[in-house]
């Protein structure tokens, strides 16, 4: 689906990460993995360290902290927010949703709706589209988009193919209605036939909480039904099949070409995927931020806002930049965007607790 929305702008961004630093090599050595194998993976995939949430800290806490810091940085009161959207797959509870809990915690106006989007790595773009829709056509002047996950809690430490990948983080993005006419373009899609490529089987209505039996795959990776299990090769195939086309499509709508676009900001899955996507879409590696994963890990829906701050923060504060981006992952699903972003307010990346 293509959608172009005018008279909206990204006004501010903030990211809060987990506070516990995990080292890829040290963690692997501790569970008996050969150093040469770890260094080979670290080099190919781009893993070095990641930040995971301390005990008791949830995606809601991380996003609330990012929101409070962003509002403070912008000199805004929480009551000026007209709606809140929360993108997460690791909510505090099955009910109520995280957006309502955040609404109560921040003291938002009763006229502000609050709802969750149950999405992962493509979710920030879908959330941005929702927020932009509310501003462009829904009567909102300022929408808070929170996106965050604590996926490190779902992986099995015995699953060396998935567990070392994920970091925990939460983001806050403020989207505002403006008189500016330049549109933000979106291309969103899904392929549910590949839904089992990234899955946590247990914990929903189909397979509620119950006894867990651990199984071991041919490579010795251990998982059970309450773990996040990912078929990396199939996710990679899906990414190469769908993401370049989505990027090319959204760039056509925006009238962008790689040579005159400032940056391609992708979901920070791992360096290998990002490098391949940059090559396939005609962007240089210099145009394509890739360093988030080696400092923070794969942060699910927070990775694009984290890349915008970590790699482009100063330039976006001075803005505008012509930005093309794409999130992709669980669903399987994807969301691409293109448009001018900035100047905007950025709160620095901090961890919680500090």
């Amino acid at each position, binding site marked *: 689906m293509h959608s172009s929305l005018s008279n909206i702008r990204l006004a501010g961004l903030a990211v809060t990460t987990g506070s516990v630093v995990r080292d890829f090599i040290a963690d692997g050595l501790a569970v008996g993995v050969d150093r040469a194998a770890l260094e*080979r993976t670290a080099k190919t995939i781009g893993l070095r360290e990641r930040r995971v949430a301390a005990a008791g800290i949830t995606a809601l806490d991380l996003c609330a902290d990012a929101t409070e810091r962003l509002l403070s940085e912008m000199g805004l009161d929480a009551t000026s927010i007209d709606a809140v959207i929360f993108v997460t797959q690791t909510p505090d509870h099955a009910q109520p949703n995280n957006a309502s809990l955040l609404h109560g915690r921040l003291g938002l106006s009763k006229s502000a709706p609050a709802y969750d989007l149950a999405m992962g790595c493509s979710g920030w773009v879908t959330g941005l589209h929702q927020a932009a829709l509310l501003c462009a056509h829904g009567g909102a002047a300022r929408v808070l988009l929170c996106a965050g996950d604590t996926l490190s809690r779902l992986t099995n430490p015995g699953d060396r193919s998935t567990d070392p990948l994920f970091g925990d983080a939460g983001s806050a993005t403020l989207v505002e209605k403006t008189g500016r006419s330049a549109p933000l373009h979106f291309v969103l899609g899904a392929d549910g036939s590949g839904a089992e490529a990234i899955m946590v089987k247990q914990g929903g209505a189909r397979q509620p909480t119950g006894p867990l039996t651990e199984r071991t795959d041919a490579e010795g990776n251990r998982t059970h039904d309450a773990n996040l299990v990912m078929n990396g090769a199939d996710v990679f*195939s899906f990414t*190469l099949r769908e993401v370049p086309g989505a990027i090319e499509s959204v760039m056509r709508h925006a009238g962008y070409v790689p040579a005159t676009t400032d940056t391609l900001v992708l979901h920070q899955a791992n360096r290998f995927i990002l490098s*391949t996507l940059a090559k396939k879409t005609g962007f240089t590696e210099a145009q394509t931020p890739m360093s988030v994963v080696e400092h923070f890990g794969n942060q699910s829906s927070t990775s694009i806002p984290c890349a915008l701050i970590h790699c482009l923060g100063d330039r976006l504060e001075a803005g505008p930049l012509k930005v093309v981006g794409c999130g992709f992952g669980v669903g399987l699903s994807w969301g691409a965007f293109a448009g001018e972003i900035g100047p905007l307010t950025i709160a620095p990346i901090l961890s919680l607790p500090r």
Partner: protein
Amino acid sequence: MTRAEQLAALRADVDALAHADEATVLAALPQWDSLAILLVVSHFEHVHEIEITGAQVRACRTVGDILNLIPSLS
């Protein structure tokens, strides 16, 4: 490309196969893991412009079986 050239290209892209020949049994290679499978998928995509799945690669017993996934050579 000849089959020998295909093998050389595969060995260059997938370090786990660097010293393998067509008869090499994949399961016997110490570095044959999920990362190696991902590199094979990537190799097929950028060298042969063929989309293959991880399941197809996992089903291969030998390096020759991987080469047989290239339609023009099988």
